[in-house]
């Protein structure tokens, strides 16, 4: 970039930041350095700690350890407002402005030009117009902000932040809902602001955009700093490896060879299955006693595939079969009826019913499957709960405890128990080890293997590539909401998966920079 930074003067220095939520260590001694006038991409998969880092730096969360320096001065904002006052502004993906107020009112909220206690609307509009003109926008500032596109709302939020004398501008997934043209406009503004010496933190999972706009990249994984690199000298494959691979030990599949599995019965199959604008049509065969891993970057269509397979989302093309018979999967109820189970990635919002007990959470799917008129007696419920609490070593072992009080790992086990109680033929696990501590992590992986040995068919999504490699018989690689590659047997290793994920980028000019 033309406005390259002066390495001698870091604008924002974050040193040794740690943050835990209960037993989960969201950030461990993370360092981050932003120079004046640079655009710095902050990357990592879901749960890597990007959002937590931003929220700790801007005072939304209190930090457990570490320091933050802005222009050499130590700062410890207690709230987003205090951070803004210190010169650190954040614009989130969901713009935090008021859509029912006018653009001008949003720009000058809390600091309207006043005379004799009355807001000077005319003056405010004039200044709003001038401010936005600076960003290349010529719009009616008296109209409600909600009338405008997300892109304009974003620019308005940025304009407000910059006008509040921000020295550091954090943009969290600003391009997620913008089209190509709008992204160009936003990038133009970002370059302009960087040219004025503002440091910009750019969080995105669109790697093309990261290569286009950023000078420098910092990668986080599992709450730790993986590294900081110059964008121009970081090949795309290497970047993906930083984001996904653990330590690149050449893990190979621990599972038996693929030929053996060909002989197994097909449990469920999907032909040209897909949904417009959701996932491109795919073919997928799931066999009894087999683990199929779904690998790909965030937003590549992994979760979407899982939801289609389970029936949480309706496909608009293709044919699903269970044990050879054609079926229609219109709702989760259909999936459950056909013997499928689904542990979603968002345990808290989509998985557990926090207020209900461990017992009630475990029997929920089985009871739903049996129907209203065949209630499980309290004795049966107790028995089921006791059996799974023991089998999966759920702690604390009191089945009457509200599940919301358990740790993430134990909540995950309760969800597994919920599905195992229905004696499923296929289990879909979306990030089963996300956000749980190391001990429970290993246990969940051991469970996946055991279940599979008992004839269950498993479809597992994970961002941890070496984990996928360890338990999968086959790995389907996704990119841009399409299935692009299927690896089996000896072909399953981290390198091959990474190559498949990055194949697209290898053809572009960015790779040439390496």
């Amino acid at each position, binding site marked *: 970039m033309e406005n390259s930074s002066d390495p001698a003067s870091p604008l924002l220095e974050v040193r040794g930041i740690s943050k835990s939520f209960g037993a989960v260590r969201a950030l461990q001694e993370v360092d981050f350095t932003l120079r004046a006038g640079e655009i710095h991409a902050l990357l990592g998969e879901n749960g890597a700690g990007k959002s937590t880092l931003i929220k700790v730096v801007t005072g939304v969360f209190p930090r457990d350890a570490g320091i933050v320096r802005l222009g050499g001065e130590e700062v410890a904002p207690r709230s987003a407002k205090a951070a803004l006052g210190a010169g650190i502004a954040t614009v989130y993906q969901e713009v935090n402005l008021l859509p029912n107020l006018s653009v001008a009112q949003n720009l000058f909220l809390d600091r309207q030009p006043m005379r004799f206690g009355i807001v000077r609307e005319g003056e405010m509009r004039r200044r709003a117009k001038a401010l936005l003109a600076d960003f290349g926008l010529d719009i009616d500032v008296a109209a409600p902000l909600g009338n405008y596109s997300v892109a304009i709302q974003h620019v308005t939020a940025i304009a407000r932040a910059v006008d509040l004398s921000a020295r550091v501008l954090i943009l969290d997934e600003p391009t997620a809902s913008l089209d190509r043209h709008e992204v160009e406009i936003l990038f133009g503004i970002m370059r302009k602001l960087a040219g004025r010496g503002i440091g910009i933190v750019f969080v995105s999972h669109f790697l093309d955009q990261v290569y286009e706009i950023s000078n420098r990249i910092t990668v986080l994984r599992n709450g730790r700093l993986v590294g900081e690199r110059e964008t121009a000298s970081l090949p795309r494959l290497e970047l993906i490896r930083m984001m996904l691979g653990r330590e690149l030990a050449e893990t190979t599949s621990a599972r038996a060879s693929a030929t053996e599995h060909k002989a197994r019965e097909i449990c469920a199959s999907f032909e040209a299955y897909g949904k417009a604008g959701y996932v491109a049509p795919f073919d997928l065969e799931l066999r009894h006693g087999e683990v199929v891993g779904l690998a790909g970057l965030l937003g590549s269509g992994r979760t979407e595939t899982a939801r289609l397979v389970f029936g949480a989302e309706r496909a608009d093309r293709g044919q699903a079969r269970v044990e050879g018979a054609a079926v229609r999967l219109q709702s*989760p109820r259909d999936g459950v009826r056909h013997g499928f189970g689904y542990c979603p990635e968002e345990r808290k919002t*989509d998985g557990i*019913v926090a207020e209900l007990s461990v017992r009630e959470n475990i029997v929920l799917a089985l*009871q739903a499957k049996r129907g209203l008129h065949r209630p499980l007696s309290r004795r049966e419920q107790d028995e089921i709960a006791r059996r799974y609490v023991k089998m999966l070593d759920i702690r604390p072992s009191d089945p009457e405890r509200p599940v919301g*009080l358990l740790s993430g790992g134990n909540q995950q086990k309760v969800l597994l128990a919920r599905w195992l109680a229905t004696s499923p033929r296929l289990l879909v696990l979306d990030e089963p080890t996300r956000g749980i501590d190391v001990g429970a992590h290993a246990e969940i992986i051991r469970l996946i293997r055991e279940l599979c040995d008992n004839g269950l068919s498993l479809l597992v999504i994970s961002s941890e590539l070496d984990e996928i490699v360890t338990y999968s018989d086959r790995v389907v690689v996704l990119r841009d909401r399409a299935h692009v590659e299927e690896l089996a047997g000896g072909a399953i290793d981290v390198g091959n998966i990474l190559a498949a994920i990055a194949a697209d980028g290898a053809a572009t000019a960015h790779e040439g920079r390496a």
Partner: protein
Amino acid sequence: MTALLPRRGLAQILALIVILAVDRVVSPQFFDLRLQDGRLFGSLIDVLNRGTPVALLSLGMVLVIATRGIDLSVGAVMAICGAIAASLADSHGLPVVLAAALGAGLVCGLWNGFLVAVLGMQPIVATLILMVAGRGIAQLITEGRIVTFSSPDLVWLGNGSVLGLPVPVVIALGMLILTGAVVRGSALGLLIEATGGNARASELAGVGTRAMILAVYVWCGVCAALAGVIAAADIMGADANNAGLWLELDAILAVVIGGTSLFGGRFSLVLAVLGALIIQTMNTGILLSGYPPEFNLLVKAVVVLAVLLLQSPKFSGFAGIAARLRRTKA
């Protein structure tokens, strides 16, 4: 199946005892009962009898609130069904009258349930529609008059007695047992609590959340219809303007006093009915004390505040649990 009266009912029982004791102080004859013509009389019986409409409403309301909904239309549904019963009472037999009135309540419940479960409207807005329109419908049925009737069957429903107890009280008791048997005897209770606790998760677990929500609004409509018939039978006439007026608020209050959170999830039928009785015990006590009835509203407000404070996590011993819940959420 023993979950009908959980341990957490202690606060409500204590509250009822305290209010009864206060009533005893203001009115020394409060606990007196006498048998006359095979029927019990006394303030306690009066509390039960007067409390019946709200108790019936709260039986439906508690299920709706457990799914994280609310039904503001129950008062209007009472008016509609009371009007229907009163108009038919002198020309048709009791079975027809009851079937028509309860059928109307069922249709009202279906309408609310359709708006909430199928169209996905916010419950407070969806049921506001029938709350407003329902009174209009009731007035159309009565043609703006107070419809009176003299059918002895229907009058008996409001003023008769069975085994010494007023018929409305027996009906309410029967409905409590019936609702309890249906809800806790089947898996409905668990699935309703799961739907209210986390609808997304419940749906992904295969629970038919829409059917659950539809069912509770229908039941709420039927309970309101029954309350409406009893209210009409009690005064031997239907007043479209005043029947069930503001009773939706009492029903919601009864549910809240009964410890069911407006955020849905765990619910208790017995405690909701106990809540209705607490409200009526207060009302009767204030009437007996000779204070002007306006006091009623103030006292009610104070009691609500007290109950809500007791239930609020920051105020009670649940503070620790709530804090841990919050931490794990973050």
